[in-house]
């Protein structure tokens, strides 16, 4: 049973954490693709920017959360979301909109977004330095150890406070996004424009408004994902390089342009990562004595070493592109 708890801690919880972050990030990427038809490579840095805004605000007002009994970074999140949304709209106006107006090919937009990536990252480095910083400036990171009421189980289930917030916020974002896309007039217009931009225009939908709304959504979601990740680990200016690949893998696995697919894809990639680096030997350990002698259990039975974790989304990406390029939910092909 101890081994099972170990599995819960290292796979179920860790996979859900990674999955949630990838899912929220991938939704942004997929929304941008469905409206503007290009792969937005600067998305990871919009996430870092959101987290950086939280760090900045928390450093400025470290006591703000104490009054309400919640960690300060969480109080600052809505403000950081608004600032990141503003940044996203600003970037679009300055860099992407003129290119769109020229009617450039998607690849030009992709390269432009690569430029934005480097700019944003440089900017954040300039102010935040190159090292890691904890978003818990003045608060304490609670770690909950929940012992299971089963005899013989000594290992507790371990979950941290930011992880709980992460799950709650992911659930809220997904539900809110669902209602926005399926019920609101603007959300339906967004789906309509994704389906057929010309017909959307012929219906009187102002496509410039929809583009702006898309950036606000993508920016806000990016800030959530970036902050939650930085809360769970630490804030680093180059977080985006570790996020970009899994997020794009998630968006493509789910079917590009398909928000629900992106959420599913996020969890597929998150769990695939944790399952790949999990030491399966641990689960076999209770049967160690009943195994025949010629089959002795090696110390590590993981598919790949932890240092190769980043390879997993790459593998999934290639596999999906070869065998099912439209993704699980039949999205558009990039």
């Amino acid at each position: 049973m101890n081994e099972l708890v170990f599995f819960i801690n290292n796979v179920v919880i860790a996979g859900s954490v990674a999955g949630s972050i990838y899912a929220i990030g991938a939704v942004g990427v997929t929304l941008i693709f469905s409206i503007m038809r290009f792969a937005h490579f600067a998305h990871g840095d919009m996430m870092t920017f959101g987290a950086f805004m939280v760090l900045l605000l928390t450093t400025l007002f470290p006591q703000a959360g104490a009054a309400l009994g919640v960690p300060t970074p969480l109080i600052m999140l809505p403000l950081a979301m608004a600032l990141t949304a503003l940044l996203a709209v600003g970037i679009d106006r300055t860099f992407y909109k003129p290119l769109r107006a020229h009617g450039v090919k998607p690849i030009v937009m992709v390269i432009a977004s690569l430029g934005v990536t480097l700019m944003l990252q440089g900017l954040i480095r300039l102010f935040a330095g190159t090292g890691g910083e904890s978003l818990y400036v003045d608060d304490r990171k609670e770690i909950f150890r929940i012992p299971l009421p089963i005899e013989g189980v000594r290992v507790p289930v371990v979950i941290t406070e930011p992880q709980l917030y992460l799950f709650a916020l992911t659930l809220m974002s997904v539900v809110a996004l669902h209602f926005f896309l399926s019920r609101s007039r603007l959300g339906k217009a967004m789906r309509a424009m994704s389906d057929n931009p010309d017909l959307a225009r012929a219906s009187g939908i102002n496509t410039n408004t929809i583009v702006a709304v898309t950036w606000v959504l993508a920016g806000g979601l990016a800030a959530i994902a970036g902050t939650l990740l930085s809360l769970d680990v630490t804030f680093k200016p180059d977080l985006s390089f570790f996020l970009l690949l899994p997020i794009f893998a998630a968006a493509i696995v789910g079917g590009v342009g398909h928000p629900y697919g992106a959420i599913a894809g996020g969890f597929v990639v998150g769990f695939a990562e944790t399952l790949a680096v999990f030491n399966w030997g641990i689960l076999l350990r209770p049967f160690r004595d009943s195994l025949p002698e010629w089959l002795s259990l090696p110390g590590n039975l993981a598919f790949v070493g932890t240092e190769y974790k980043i390879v997993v989304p790459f593998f999934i990406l290639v596999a999906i592109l070869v065998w099912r390029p439209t993704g699980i939910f039949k999205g558009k092909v990039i």
Partner: protein
Amino acid sequence: MPLLDARDVHGGYGGMNILNGVDMAIEADEIGVIVGPNGAGKSTMLKAVFGLLRVSQGEILLRGEPIHNLPPNRLVQKGMGFVPQEYNVFPSLSVKENLQMGAYLKPGNVKRMLSRVYEFFPPLKDKRHQPAGELSGGQRQMVAMGRALMAEPEVLLLDEPTAGLSPRYMNEIFERVKEVNAAGVGILMVEQNAKQALAIADKGFVLAAGQNRFTDTGAALLADPDVAKSFLGG
């Protein structure tokens, strides 16, 4: 004053002129039908009216007000509806959502117009929760027309509404067009099925090489031996 009045319209794509002076006028209660050989500029003319193509010379008036080169969303506000020939529904949106998008600029209209559109096209009511992309060609055409009607247009532009439909659906669509027109919507449509279309037309415009070749009532064009010989297949 005619509802829609196009005078000496010139226009085309990227410097190449396709329209070389087209004249066309319909009254508020009329059905106007544009026919002609391939490449005559029929669809191009419809796009020019709906602001999807630059008019370089001439003018287009809606109730006497110049509207050429206005963007489509302004034209929707001014009472014009357009149904393209292809890609005329939002395939992943449900039938009802498709119709709601038609009334995007007039959200107050949605409830009232939904029930009116369901009256015009009863099959749509049963399928309102189904994605429009899953419907048959004829029903999809109904969704497309319904979407345009949701904004309560004074004039509806239809680009080959019966293209690719079976004869049964073709007749049904023509019947619907007549009904919509009887309900007070002016119609300007491009048609390949020239004989059937001219039979319901108040005005007919035979285009060739971007110019009016014949302009008369639908019945007169059908009766004209020259028109029949050159454009209606004898």
